[in-house]
């Protein structure tokens, strides 16, 4: 394969960013891995131009975001409707939580105590459990720094709907954090 070594280095450099973006948007590490593979395959197809581009990271981020939204729109909704797999997903939540924990970066030595680390894992799991229509705009707003309007444009829904869904998502996460605080 021509240029496999530079491309391998390219994948190593960006794989955490691509996978992390996809995992947070999709809330599912398995699907995030599938999407990441598609994204890097597209990157390979235009690698000669992309390798030297200073905006390669931004390009990858945008493609990842679009692929995730396509994935949610085209595949997951259809799959859920005809297979009624929602209950199966709920059953596999604990398994997904564990695989999500495995993807978390190691805490930098003494900076994080165990309690704080545990709270973050639970927050990550709560984020993952949010329904798609709340998690996706929430992640786009807080972690991708997109505005309400651009989120509404991207998702093809009204501005009010975006604000409502994000607020409900925040409330759910707040309850999770409150439970964590109370349990201390």
């Amino acid at each position: 394969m021509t240029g496999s070594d530079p491309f391998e280095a390219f994948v190593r450099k960006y794989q955490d960013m691509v996978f992390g973006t996809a995992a947070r948007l999709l809330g599912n590490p398995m699907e995030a891995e599938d999407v990441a593979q598609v994204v890097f395959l597209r990157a390979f197809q235009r690698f000669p131009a992309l390798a030297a581009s200073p905006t390669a990271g931004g390009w990858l981020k945008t493609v990842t975001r679009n692929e995730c939204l396509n994935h949610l729109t085209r595949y997951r909704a259809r799959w859920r409707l005809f297979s009624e797999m929602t209950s199966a997903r709920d059953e596999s939540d604990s398994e997904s939580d564990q695989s999500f924990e495995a993807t978390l970066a190691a805490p930098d030595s003494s900076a994080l105590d165990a309690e704080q680390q545990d709270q973050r894992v639970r927050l990550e799991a709560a984020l993952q459990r949010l329904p798609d229509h709340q998690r996706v705009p929430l992640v786009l707003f807080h972690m991708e720094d997109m505005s309400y309007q651009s989120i509404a444009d991207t998702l093809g829904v009204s501005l009010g709907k975006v604000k409502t869904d994000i607020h409900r998502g925040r409330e759910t996460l707040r309850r999770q954090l409150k439970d964590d605080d109370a349990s201390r």
Partner: protein
Amino acid sequence: MHPVELQGRIDRELKSLPALRAPGTLLPRVLAAVRHWADRPWYARAWFTWPMWWRVASAVALLAVLAGVGVALPVVQDSVAARAAAVHLPVSVSASVDVAAAARRVVVIASTLRTLWVAIAGPFVAYAFLLLVLMGLLCAACAAALNRVAFGRTAHS
């Protein structure tokens, strides 16, 4: 909690989440997929990824075919018309009588059909057409609704 405070707190909490690490299986998967893609023959890929000379050759061939069709079509039409005009069929007396009878039958059938159309079918054509259009619109609305509910924006709405 006030919405602005809530936004600030959730923003801090989410931004403080550690970066997710890609699983160790991702890199081998990507490289295998890339290798599989790269091993495809060039003609099985998108046209713009073909070797330059093949792209040029295919474009030239396409233009040649289009030009050939453009030049040859009038010639073929003229040739067919000339051959059709040159054919003389021997017509006997009995055959001409049969042809005349058949022509009369055709005229009778055509006038009967025309009468039936004007008397029976004609008044309903407009309504049938309207019904057809309404059914088409209804089908399109059902398809759009199904697409929205089943395949469309349900994930985001």
